């Protein structure tokens, strides 16, 4: 059974928390979704397994990249109806500040939505929304229903 189809049939096609709970790596990172109307914020609480530099300490660059990518995919799934999870074609990440040992939040915007490809920008921050720790833009391959 396909994950997205299963959720749609259960009437939870727009329930993004249910989606992340079914993606093992998202569950491992501890990603949650805060959904208020059509506004989606992803949340990644801090835990030791996410650290890349134990001295500072700072979040691993790969974790920051994964969270940006996950934030993009969640927004894309919310905005569109897909048969399968979108496939990342490419992603370009700017690391702006080191990630502190505290919760990280993410928002994404689908900047262009074509039939097969979508462009998505993501931004993640910690204590201050105006001081993002990372931004990314990526292209995703879609499988429309």
């Amino acid at each position, binding site marked *: 059974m396909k994950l997205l189809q299963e959720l749609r049939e259960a009437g939870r096609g727009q329930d993004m928390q249910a989606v992340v709970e079914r993606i*093992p790596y998202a569950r491992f990172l501890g990603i949650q979704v805060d959904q208020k109307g059509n506004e989606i914020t992803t949340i990644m609480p801090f835990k030791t397994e996410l650290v890349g530099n134990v001295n500072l300490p700072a979040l691993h*660059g790969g974790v920051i990249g994964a969270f940006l990518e996950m934030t993009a995919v969640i927004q894309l799934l919310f905005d569109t109806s897909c048969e399968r999870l979108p496939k990342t074609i490419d992603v370009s990440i700017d*690391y702006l500040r080191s990630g502190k040992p505290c919760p990280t939040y993410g928002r994404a915007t689908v900047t262009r939505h074509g039939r097969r490809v979508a462009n998505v920008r993501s931004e993640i921050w910690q204590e201050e929304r105006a001081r993002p720790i990372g931004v990314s833009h990526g292209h995703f391959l879609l499988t429309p229903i």
Partner: protein
Amino acid sequence: METVAQHLLEIPHAAAIGMTLVRHDERGCVTRIPYAEHLVGDPDTGVLHGGVLTALLDNTCGMAVRPPSYDPGSITMATLDLRIDYMESAAPHRDVYAEAVCYKRTRNIAFVRATAYQDSPDEPIATCVASFMLNTPNAPRREGLS
């Protein structure tokens, strides 16, 4: 002196995804992660999450910045920019390797490219280019671990 292999084990997220060092010499750095259920990105297919490859490539690039003869703790760095192209899904239930080469190192910045593959570096599943800021502060934050 701590070896790069030991240093890798002490990076919590690298350990969490099961990263180990295959080789590190003048030609670059090769690492490996075994397939694991908690790294899956698409439960319908069992394919690894793109973010796992991001973590693998980012970490391997960082390791390639350090010459193999250096104490890994003596060079500090932070990723500035990372761009990844995903060419193909990683085949489930098989290891993934990453090979990184630092092709230019200046006083402040290092430029690195890397390839993730399963069978051979000639058949990449993902490639990336990254730049790193060198000699970044590494002292504990004043706030410490919260």
